[in-house]
């Protein structure tokens, strides 16, 4: 342990200002602080500090995403296996999933972190750990067959335009991971929608006649459609268990209700994510879901809306992003409710978009400061009145 410290101390001067590699000091600092909690002491104010830091908070979110990621890897292989009728065993399925999902992670982290490091270097900041979470999220919310170069462009767009131009983590208006998805969605719609993009290998098979595991070609009756493609009770009732387990096509990490709930439990227990946003988003989704059911716009009872598509994933991991969500406690209730309500509204009443979660969250990200503004104004007025009476 001391040897490692000595080594770091030995090479440190090279990376400090004026050193040979001084232009890399933010990068060096990022790796050093990753290994060691720095020896900085408090200069002013409180002399002692809580030992929690942003790295710890962020790593909790990353951990919470692990079940969804692991399940997503397995499910990618499993869906491929089903589509091509391969009769694979567990390890084959996982291997295929890894081959498909790992490159997504490599691209998301390489591109995103590279931009983060460079901009930290330019601004002279420490590298912020926020991207650890964004990079973990991005592969989980895209179709597994998305071309890697597209993903790279989308990540670059989201990190530069969505985050760095505003000043980095903590200053951004929109959730960077969702911005990546939105960029892909609007720039390359053919790769982001339809029935064939959600199952690994199908796109390639249709274009080139081969897939990673070509097998005998697609099985008869392969649809590849997600539940959102045809949201009727007749179609979905038999699938309900699959939808909860997650053994359906969809974006990599969004399918399994159980895996997402495991992550939600960790986030709520550690207090990293707001339970108010999660609860109110679910309430909003249920309210509009049942409203649509009551007026006959859909024959699905409201709770189906929660287990379909990206609703739960968005509610647990995206809507609760502390930077882009509402900041006031009362505002969180409003914000969360509107996220859920809007997402389901788009699903039920807008024939153009089968899924509304991404846009609902991005829209509410935009309006979160406005919600906060009115909540605060209201609170200040109420207090002023109370003080006057007293």
């Amino acid at each position, binding site marked *: *342990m001391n040897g*490692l*410290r000595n080594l770091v101390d030995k090479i440190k001067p090279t990376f400090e200002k004026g050193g040979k590699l001084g232009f890399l000091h933010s990068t060096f600092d990022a790796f050093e*602080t990753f*290994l*060691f*909690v*720095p*020896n*900085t*002491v*408090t*200069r*002013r*104010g*409180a*002399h*002692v*500090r*809580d*030992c*929690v*830091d*942003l*790295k*710890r*908070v962020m*790593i*909790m979110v990353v951990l919470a995403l692990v079940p969804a990621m692991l399940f997503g890897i397995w499910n990618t292989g499993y869906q491929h296996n089903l589509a091509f009728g391969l009769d694979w065993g567990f390890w084959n399925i996982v291997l295929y999933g890894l081959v498909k999902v790992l490159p997504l992670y490599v691209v998301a982290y390489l591109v995103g972190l590279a931009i983060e490091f460079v901009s930290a270097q330019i601004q002279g900041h*420490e590298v*912020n750990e*926020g991207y650890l979470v964004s990079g973990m999220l991005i592969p989980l919310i895209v179709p597994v067959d998305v071309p890697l170069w597209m993903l790279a462009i989308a990540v670059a767009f989201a990190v530069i335009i969505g985050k760095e131009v505003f*000043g*980095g*983590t*903590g*200053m951004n208006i929109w959730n960077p991971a969702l911005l990546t998805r939105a960029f892909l969605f609007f720039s390359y719609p053919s790769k982001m929608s339809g029935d064939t993009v959600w199952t690994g290998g199908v796109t390639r098979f249709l274009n080139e006649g081969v897939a990673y595991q070509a097998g005998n070609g697609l099985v008869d009756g392969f649809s590849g459609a997600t539940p959102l493609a045809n949201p009727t009770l007749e179609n979905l009732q038999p699938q309900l268990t699959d939808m909860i387990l997650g053994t359906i096509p969809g974006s990599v990490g969004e399918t399994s209700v159980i895996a997402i709930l495991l992550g939600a439990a960790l986030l709520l*227990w*550690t*207090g*990293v994510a*707001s339970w108010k946003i999660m609860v109110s988003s679910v309430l909003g989704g249920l309210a509009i879901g049942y409203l649509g059911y009551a007026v006959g716009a859909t024959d699905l009872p409201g709770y189906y809306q929660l287990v379909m598509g990206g609703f739960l994933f968005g509610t647990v991991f995206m809507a609760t992003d*502390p*930077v882009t*969500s509402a*900041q*006031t*406690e009362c505002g969180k209730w409003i914000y969360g409710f509107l996220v859920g309500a809007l997402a389901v509204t788009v699903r039920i009443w807008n024939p153009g978009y089968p899924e509304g979660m991404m846009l609902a969250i991005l829209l509410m990200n935009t309006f979160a400061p406005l919600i906060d503004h009115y909540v*605060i104004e209201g*609170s*200040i007025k109420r*207090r*002023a009145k109370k*003080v006057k009476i*007293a």
Partner: protein
Amino acid sequence: MSNNIYLKKGLDLPISGEAAQSTKKVIVPDVVAVKPTDFRGLVPKLLVKEGDKVLAGSPVLADKMSQNILFTSPVSGTVAEVVRGEKRKLLEVRIKADAEQEYVDFGVKNVAEMTAEQIKEAILKAGLWPALTQRPYGIIANPEAKPKAIFVSAFTTAPLAANPEFALGADVEYIQTAVNALSKLTDGGVHFSLNSENYSGTPFHKVENVIQHTFSGKHPAGNVGVQIHHISPIRKGETVWTVSLVMLAAIGKLFSTGKYDVRRKIAVTGPKSISPAYVEGYPGIAIKDVAEFYNAAENLRFVSGDVLTGTNVGANGYLGFFDNQITILEEGDKYELLGWAKPVRCSQYSSSRTYFSWLTPKKKYAMDTNLHGGPRAFVVNDVYGKVLPMDLFPVHLLKACLANNIDDMEKFGIYEVLEEDLALCEFVCPSKIYVQQIITDGIALMLKEMC
């Protein structure tokens, strides 16, 4: 008792090194310092020069802005040194104490027969006026003003703070005298806040001529700012005064004995203090006077006050005017391998559930001064609210201060807070933001623009 104000939010810091309730020694002062830096925004005017003889109660400094506000020597002796900093800023006036203490005789007075003007004059002349703090902004009270009310917190929740019953229980009569005097300076009365959990156990509930309030809850329930917020919030244009029990005792002694007697029991505390206990001494005593409480070979920080709000005075420093506590803790200038990534960090405390300190609620931690991370932007938004029992929006207030936006600072409550009220926000902040410094800068801006 019926309308107890229960504050749900807050945090009692589990730091080790509480002072045992015994007086280990009576300090015979050697060199004491009068520090104008103890007072916000004070422009001092030096009234003595090196070599001058002073008595306990002789003026040493005056406030340049209103020169009837005097700062007097706590001991009798000779002015040894005038310490100046950058741009000749006056930092300390060091006084070498005599072996025998002599006091200026201000005359024993009967408070009941005095008018408000006479009381003001007596307090001003003896150099105890700076004991009165004016809010908003936490500056020395303006003698020309008539405050809405005067507030006293008669209990403390700050980490390892001196126990008021032990430190001041014997001075209840003096405190009563001071309350009687000060109540003539305002129409709003003297508000006395007590801890409901220890209401009958404290001698201070017998103090009369006050408006009593009871509070319960964790730190910062004992902060007078938090109490004012719940009793009668400060609105724009209003001023209130606050005064501590320690200072009330000194004011009472002035009227009852005619002496400027600021002797007090001082709690020597902190994880690195050796058998922490109380000493009897003066404000301005040197840290070296409590040398037997620490190991000088270690790399230590000496704080005049508590760990959240005190001043780092260093081994050669002096106790502050308002303080009756010295906290000694270790400088945490060490690296910790993979600290944040370890599942469990037994020796470190965190109020966050991302660690496991919540499993050992009784454990006390030997905290050091390590920052435990690097400074970041505001990211997690609900941590401050959990430790701030005030109906404010702390993050918005801080951002308004950072943006120098006076309108928003007013709106978000800059009149109601001082640094100490948000000190816990700073402690828990995962982004390691210097919350108190931001408030200090905000208040400095308000003082510059509004006064």
